[in-house]
């Protein structure tokens, strides 16, 4: 069985500081893996490296055998590796509903020109996102 996510020899240096030193692990499909350690151990840096917000100094991250380290974060997110943030991070200037709607962006089928001109794919996306957002908010008792 191939590994869903494979991290090998991951190292990150910030100048003289080695934040992450030679980390390797693999995650199988359906498995839940957690990373533990004291403050400053480099857990957050590992997550930033896996989600490609940072580029590793040495080593690599592979998703289903494909190398994802070095790609832009939004591309990695579209392939299914999505990070969350340590402190609650939301778009503060938007309503709760707008926040949930915009978070559906990964599912968007229409492109930017489509959304600008209101193509049929874009309109379907909008309806679908709004319905799904309402469902989520209802489920959480925020609707």
């Amino acid at each position, binding site marked *: 069985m191939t590994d869903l996510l494979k991290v090998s020899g991951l190292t990150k240096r910030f100048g003289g500081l080695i934040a992450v030193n030679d980390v390797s692990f693999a995650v199988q499909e359906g498995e839940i893996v957690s990373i533990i350690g004291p403050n400053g151990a480099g857990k957050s840096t590992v997550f930033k490296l896996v*989600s490609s*917000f940072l580029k590793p100094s040495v080593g690599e991250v592979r998703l289903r055998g494909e190398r994802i380290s070095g790609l*832009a*974060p*939004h*591309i990695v*997110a*579209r392939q299914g590796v*999505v*990070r*969350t*943030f340590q402190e609650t*991070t*939301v*778009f*503060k*200037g*938007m309503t709760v509903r*707008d926040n949930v*709607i*915009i*978070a559906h*962006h*990964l599912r*968007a089928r229409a492109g*930017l020109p489509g*959304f*600008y001109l*209101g193509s049929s794919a*874009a309109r379907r*996306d*909008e309806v679908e996102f709004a319905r799904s957002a309402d469902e989520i908010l209802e489920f959480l008792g925020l609707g």
Partner: protein
Amino acid sequence: MRKLGAAAAGLAVLLVGVPWAIAATGRDDLYYTLTSVALLSIASAGVWLTFFIGRINIGQGAYALIGGYVAAILVVDYGLSFWLTLPLAGLFCAAASILIGLPILRLRGVYFAMVTLVLTEVVRLLALALPITNGASGMVNIPLPGAIRLFGITIVPDFAKLRHPHLAFYIVSVLLMALCFGGLYRLVHSRVGKLCRSLQQNEELASSIGVDIAWLRVLAYAVSSFLGGVGGAVFEAISQSIYPSSFTVTDSVNFMLNCFLGGLGYVFGPMIGTFVLYFGWDLLFQTGEYQLLIYSTLLIALMLFLPNGLLSLLPVARQSET
């Protein structure tokens, strides 16, 4: 539908009501002033769009200058029709802004603002130094826009043969302004606008939900610069001349002030801001040597007491924010 009605009514006032009022009062000079406001508000709309993705842009003067020169050179040296040079000037600015924007849009806050501030000066010095721009003496006697004919029917008359070219330029500028703000309104109210706003608020979060932040940033900046170039190109056609000092750092700062004054949270902020700022400065002319002092004091007071701009005074605008 109600919005379309309001837009049509506004256009009718600008295209029929204003010329009628000017004819009745004989204040022909107002055409030049109002045309300037319309064109400056197009360039300011571009600055507003960069604000909308969370970047302070003090470099719109650079693109207005580039647009003016590109249109002038294409008309004078290559004999193209002005109407063709207008979109070409905008596209040239957009292309230039992509090259410039790719590295500098990675900067945020005051750093981006500083680089854009320098940009206007760089373009002015380039215009002084390049052989094609004719240095400090600039380009003068640029022919007025010619006619547009389609299948033998004249759609737009030759401006040089018109009795009132001022009126013609006014109509062109108002139509361009309507097109620009209509397009901007659509952008802000579509999902693209929401994505831009997500960028403004938190780029990391935006990229974690799959938004291509680098591309969106460059796209917004290119549209912004396109508008600057178009504004500059029409200005050059009206004054039939362009100099390295046609758009300076002061103009770049003014484009930004127009946005602040009208309100960064409102699409029509730059339009109102430009109008009030332009006419406010002219009205204060009566005060002579105190003009700049009173003007600056008023601006500071406005920013202190109305940080969200003049449009935040309207209860209607507040409901349908941006």
